[in-house]
C-alpha cells in the first residue's frame, strides 16, 4: 500500500537504512523500553505511552503501555507526522485540530483526542520513530512538558545506541574468535602430516580430535619413512597455546631429522632431547614432551617393531588371535634431563595384529566410575573384529570418545598400524 507522500520524510531511504541498522523491528519486549513507557504514562498522567518505530509501510511498537496493539499502518499518520520534524509534534484537541480531524484513530472507535510524539533522532539526524503519549481527553501540553518528553525520547535513543554498541562488540568478538580458530587450525594442521604415507605391509590410520578448536593443543602424531622403516610417532607436549605449539613443531621436526641419521629410535629420542635442551637454563623448560616412537619394518608375514619411549602411555597391541598386550618402553619425557636415557622394546605384528598409539586425552577421559584408563581403552575396543583394518579401530575410538558415558576433556590423538 502506498503511503501518502506528505508523510514521507526527505531522507526516507537513509532513514529506513538507519532503522535497519538498529535492528530493532520485531524484536521481543525489552525491560528498558517497558520501563520508559510506563514512566512516561505515569509522569504525564496519560493512559497510553508508546515507543514506535516507523517502518516503510507500518508503525511497529517496541513498547506499548496501555494499548493492546503491537503495530499499525503508517497511513493514519500521527507518529508518521511526528517524525517529520525534530521537535515534539503535539495535537492538544484532535476534534478541533485540522491536522488530525480526518484521522481514523480520532474519528473511529479509539476516540483519540490528545497526541504528543517526540522523534527518536539518531546522531546523524534520522528519525527512527517516536516516544508518544495518547489520551482520549483533550489536554494542554506546555513547552516544559514537551521538553521533558524530548528528554525521555533521548533516553530511548541512548538505549537503542547501547544495544547497537553491544551487538557490535559481540559481532567483533565472534569475528576475532573465528580468526583465532582459523589460525589455530592452520597452525595445528602444520603440526600434522598432510596425508598418511603408504607403506608396503602396513595399514595406517590416525585420529586427531582437538579439545577446543580455538586453542592449539600439544598432542601430535607423525608417520614417515626412514631407511627401511616406517616411523610412527605419537607425542604430547605439556601445556597449550602458541608456545606449546612451537615446542610441538620443534619436537616433530627434530625427531624427523634425528630419525634419518639415528641407529635406533632410542638414539633419535636422545638427539631430540638434546635439541630441546639447547639454550635452556634453570628453571627447566616450561614445556616438556612425552613421546612414543616405533620403527616398523617389513619382515616375512608381518612387521618387526622397535619402540622407544619418553614417558608416554604404552602402545596397545591387539593380536589377531584375541589377546591384548602392551608395548611399554620406559624413559623420561624429553626436554627435561640432560642425561636422559631412553629404553627400547622389541616386538612384532603378525598379519592382522594391530598396534594402537594414543595420547592421555583418551585414557584420562572421564567415565561414570572414574577414568577410562589403558584397560578401559582395550575393553572399549572389544567389539571391533580383529584384523579388519586400522580404520575400523579409529572409527571405534571416535565412537568411544563420542559416547555419552565418556567425557574427553583434552586433545585426543591415536595412530593405528595393522600388519597386512
Amino acid at each position, binding site marked *: 500500500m502506498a503511503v501518502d507522500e506528505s508523510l514521507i520524510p526527505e531522507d526516507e531511504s537513509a532513514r529506513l537504512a538507519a532503522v535497519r541498522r538498529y535492528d530493532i523491528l520485531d524484536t521481543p519486549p525489552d525491560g528498558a523500553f517497558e520501563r520508559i513507557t510506563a514512566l512516561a504514562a505515569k509522569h504525564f498522567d496519560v493512559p497510553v505511552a508508546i515507543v514506535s518505530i516507523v517502518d516503510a509501510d507500518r508503525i511497529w511498537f517496541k513498547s506499548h503501555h496501555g494499548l493492546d496493539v503491537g503495530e499499525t499502518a503508517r497511513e493514519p499518520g500521527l507518529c508518521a507526522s511526528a517524525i517529520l520534524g525534530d521537535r515534539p509534534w503535539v495535537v492538544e484537541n484532535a476534534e478541533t485540530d485540522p491536522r488530525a480531524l480526518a484521522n481514523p484513530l480520532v474519528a473511529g472507535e479509539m476516540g483519540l483526542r490528545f497526541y504528543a510524539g517526540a522523534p527518536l533522532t539518531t546522531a546523524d539526524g534520522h528519525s527512527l520513530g517516536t516516544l508518544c503519549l495518547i489520551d482520549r481527553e483533550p489536554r494542554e501540553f506546555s513547552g516544559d512538558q514537551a521538553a521533558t518528553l524530548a528528554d525521555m525520547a533521548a533516553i530511548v535513543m541512548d538505549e537503542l545506541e547501547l544495544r547497537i554498541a553491544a551487538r557490535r562488540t559481540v559481532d567483533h568478538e565472534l569475528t576475532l574468535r573465528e580468526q583465532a580458530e582459523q589460525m589455530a587450525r592452520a597452525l595445528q594442521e602444520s603440526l600434522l602430516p598432510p596425508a598418511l604415507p603408504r607403506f608396503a605391509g602396513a595399514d595406517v590410520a590416525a585420529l586427531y580430535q582437538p579439545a577446543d578448536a580455538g586453542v592449539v593443543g600439544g598432542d601430535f602424531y607423525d608417520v614417515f619413512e626412514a631407511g627401511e622403516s616406517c616411523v610412527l610417532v605419537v607425542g604430547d607436549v605439556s601445556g597449550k597455546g602458541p608456545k606449546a605449539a612451537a615446542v610441538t613443531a620443534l619436537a616433530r621436526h627434530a625427531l624427523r631429522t634425528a630419525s634419518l641419521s639415528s641407529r635406533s629410535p632410542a638414539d633419535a629420542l636422545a638427539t631430540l632431547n638434546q635439541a630441546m635442551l639447547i639454550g635452556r637454563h634453570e628453571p627447566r623448560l616450561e614445556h616438556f614432551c612425552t613421546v612414543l616412537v616405533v620403527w616398523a619394518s617389513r619382515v616375512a608375514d608381518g612387521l618387526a617393531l622397535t619402540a622407544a619411549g619418553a614417558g608416554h*602411555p604404552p602402545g596397545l597391541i591387539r593380536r589377531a588371535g584375541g589377546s591384548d598386550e602392551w608395548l611399554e618402553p620406559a624413559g*623420561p619425557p624429553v626436554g627435561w634431563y640432560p642425561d*636422559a636415557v631412553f629404553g627400547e622394546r622389541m616386538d612384532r605384528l603378525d598379519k592382522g595384529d594391530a598396534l594402537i598409539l594414543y595420547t592421555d586425552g583418551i585414557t584420562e577421559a572421564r567415565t*561414570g566410575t*572414574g577414568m577410562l584408563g589403558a584397560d578401559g581403552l582395550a575393553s572399549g575396543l572389544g567389539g571391533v573384529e580383529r584384523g579388519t583394518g586400522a580404520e575400523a579401530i579409529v572409527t571405534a575410538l571416535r565412537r568411544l570418545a563420542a559416547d555419552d558415558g565418556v567425557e574427553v576433556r583434552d586433545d585426543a590423538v591415536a595412530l593405528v598400524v595393522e600388519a597386512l
Partner: protein
Amino acid sequence: MPEPVRPEGFSVTRATHDGGVVVSLHGEFDIAGIERVEAATAELPPGTQLVLDLGDLQFIDSSGLRTLMNLDLRSRGEGWSLAFSEPQPAVRRLLRLCGFEHRVPLTPG
C-alpha cells in the same frame, strides 16, 4: 551425559624424623596439587633425606609427574636425597614408564 565423577581430591601430609622428611601424597595428584607439594618440599637443607610416600596416591597426571621430575632435579642441585616409597601398581607403572626407576630409589614404606 552422566555427571562426571569428580576427582577424589588430593591432600599432602608432612612428617619429620631425625635427618629425614616424609611427605605423603593422598588421592589424585593433578595441576591443583602442585603448590601444596612444592610448599611441603620447600627449602630442604643439604643432606636431608626426603621420602615421598606414594602409598595412598591413586592417580598422577602430567602436572604431577613434572613436579616429581622437578624434585628429582632439585635434589641433585641442592644436595639432598630423594626416594619414593610404596607406590600402588598403576602409579608404579607410570613411574617406571617415565624412567624414574633408574633415577629415584624406591624404598619400602
